[in-house]
């Protein structure tokens, strides 16, 4: 299998910040909004270099989403940023009416998604956001896997006309995608070819999937790993091509199994090519306090959980 190297741990939110810095220098229409979490979103450089294009809304996410919608009227490309919980569930109706239904070119940029923000606990750990956002007609949903890919995705969505939900996280994780890899919305990335099982992973779980595939290879199991960085629109063809070859699939995501990537994949398979599927995801539960590693272990979201799911799904082929 293809080997990937961790170029040095980094956080995906810093990838967002770096992407914003570049957009600030290259795209005069890009504007940034934040609801009192500038440091957490890593957008200090953008603000320093473009103070007139930054809007601090205070702890008022509903107003931030509305202002972002309004800024598009006049040609601006607003990147509205806060924690994933406050960027989705808290403001669902504002996004639904003022952004999605109104077809506004707003980029909703959400850090601290999933369990891995850690110690703050379940009030801040949203595991439902992918579902909430993918259900909105016209919304693009992206969950990049590492620093490099988050930076590339941030830059890429500025050129996409329409609302986007960009989901990333807090912890420093392996940074392994090529630094110069262009981000193509909706185009799944084949990371490692295999023949026995397909692993479709998104976000922080992509690296865990690669670790699992390496271990499986030592057991004589050939796993194909695909990075589904875009959950909507889903790359149906890449998924079907792979599953037609391997005959079974494991989906892996830092999200509830209800409403997440796994269900989107199940729909594609049920419609076109039914195949056994196992879900590495949280099991309809809230999170809790703990270190990211402890939480991923407890809630079954790491390489070991993926490995176990592969062994289980292989028996169902």
């Amino acid at each position: 299998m293809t080997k990937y190297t961790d170029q040095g741990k980094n956080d995906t939110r810093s990838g967002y910040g770096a992407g914003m810095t570049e957009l600030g220098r290259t795209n005069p229409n890009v504007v940034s909004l934040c609801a009192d979490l500038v440091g957490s979103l890593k957008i200090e450089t953008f603000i320093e270099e473009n103070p007139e294009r930054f809007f601090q809304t205070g702890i008022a996410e509903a107003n931030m989403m509305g202002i972002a919608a309004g800024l598009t009227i006049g040609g601006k490309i607003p990147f509205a940023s806060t924690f994933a919980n406050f960027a989705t569930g808290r403001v669902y109706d504002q996004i639904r009416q003022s952004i999605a239904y109104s077809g506004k070119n707003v980029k909703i940029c959400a850090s601290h998604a999933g369990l891995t923000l850690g110690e703050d606990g379940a009030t801040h750990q949203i595991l439902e956001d992918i579902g909430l956002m993918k259900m909105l007609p016209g919304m693009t949903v992206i969950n990049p896997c590492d620093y490099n890919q988050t930076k590339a995705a941030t830059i890429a969505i500025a050129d996409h006309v329409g609302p986007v939900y960009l989901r990333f996280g807090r912890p420093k994780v392996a940074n392994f995608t090529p630094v110069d890899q262009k981000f193509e919305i909706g185009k799944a990335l084949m990371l490692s070819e295999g023949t026995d099982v397909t692993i479709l992973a998104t976000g922080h779980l992509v690296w865990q999937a690669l670790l699992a595939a390496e271990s499986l290879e030592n057991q004589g199991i050939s796993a194909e790993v695909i990075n589904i960085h875009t959950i909507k629109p889903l790359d149906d063809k890449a998924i079907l091509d792979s599953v037609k070859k391997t005959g079974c699939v494991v989906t892996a995501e830092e999200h509830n199994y209800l409403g997440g990537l796994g269900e989107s994949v199940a729909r594609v398979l049920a419609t076109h090519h039914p195949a056994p599927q196992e879900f590495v995801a949280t099991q309809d539960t809230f999170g809790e306090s703990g270190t990211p590693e402890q939480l991923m272990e407890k809630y079954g979201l790491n390489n070991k959980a993926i490995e176990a799911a592969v062994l289980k799904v292989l028996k169902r082929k």
Partner: protein
Amino acid sequence: MTIQNEILMPNTKELQDLVVQVRRDILRMVHKVNSGHPGGSLGCTEFFVALYNEIMDLKDGFDMDGKGEDLFFLSNGHISPVFYSVLARRGYFPIEELNTFRLINSRLQGHPTTHEGLPGVRVASGSLGQGMSVAIGAALAKKLNGDDHLVFSLHGDGELQEGQNWEAIMYAAGNKVDNLIATVDRNGQQIDGATEDVLPLGDVSEKFRAFGWDVMEIEDGNNLEQVIAGLKEAKSRTGKGKPVCIVMTTMMGNGVDFMMHTHAWHGKAPNDEQLATALAQNPETLGDY
């Protein structure tokens, strides 16, 4: 301050004819589909007629960005009948299209939307409390673009019970969004009754003032001349470091005697007989659609 009728009114007779015709449009639209919101629409007819025909600097045609012209956002989207009628009669789309209000496959949805591409609408509204934030965003975009045109918005008074308004009110004052004129339709009514019975709003002007807005009042929002004078006064107050709020007192159901002094017609259409009575009180002026 109270607006006095001291400014000479141009074209007031023509605009008054338009007011009456718009009332007829509203009544006929909601009657045809036996649904919609005539009360608040009738209460804001003078405001819409004045805004679109006397106050706003508008380009010909419609484009979403609206650069180089004044913009308007309707936050209380349920009064779509008056919005649609005034837009159509201002030339944004064919007047005959008012016939399609709330029908299947229509651009004139129950609540205004950009989704069907109706010219004149720049954001969906209906779920209340969101319009001021959007108007602020559009006003900020105008500042970034070096466009010195204004952004107007209209809000129901009951709508101020939505918390997002107060986030927006705080933001606009704190960030000196002084190219924004937000008008509150103070008709004192909402679906379940009087605003002061459902959830008291108290002194709306003082609340805005306390948040740092420049606040003025239009005592009779159904007096066309007062409305025009008030809106002109509001325009003169822009660009001075504060967002401008107009608290405009109106009568829900204005112009139709049995729809006034009650909240009963907030979201109810007249029957055939009631329509005939209402139309008789508002004789055709510019021609029905």
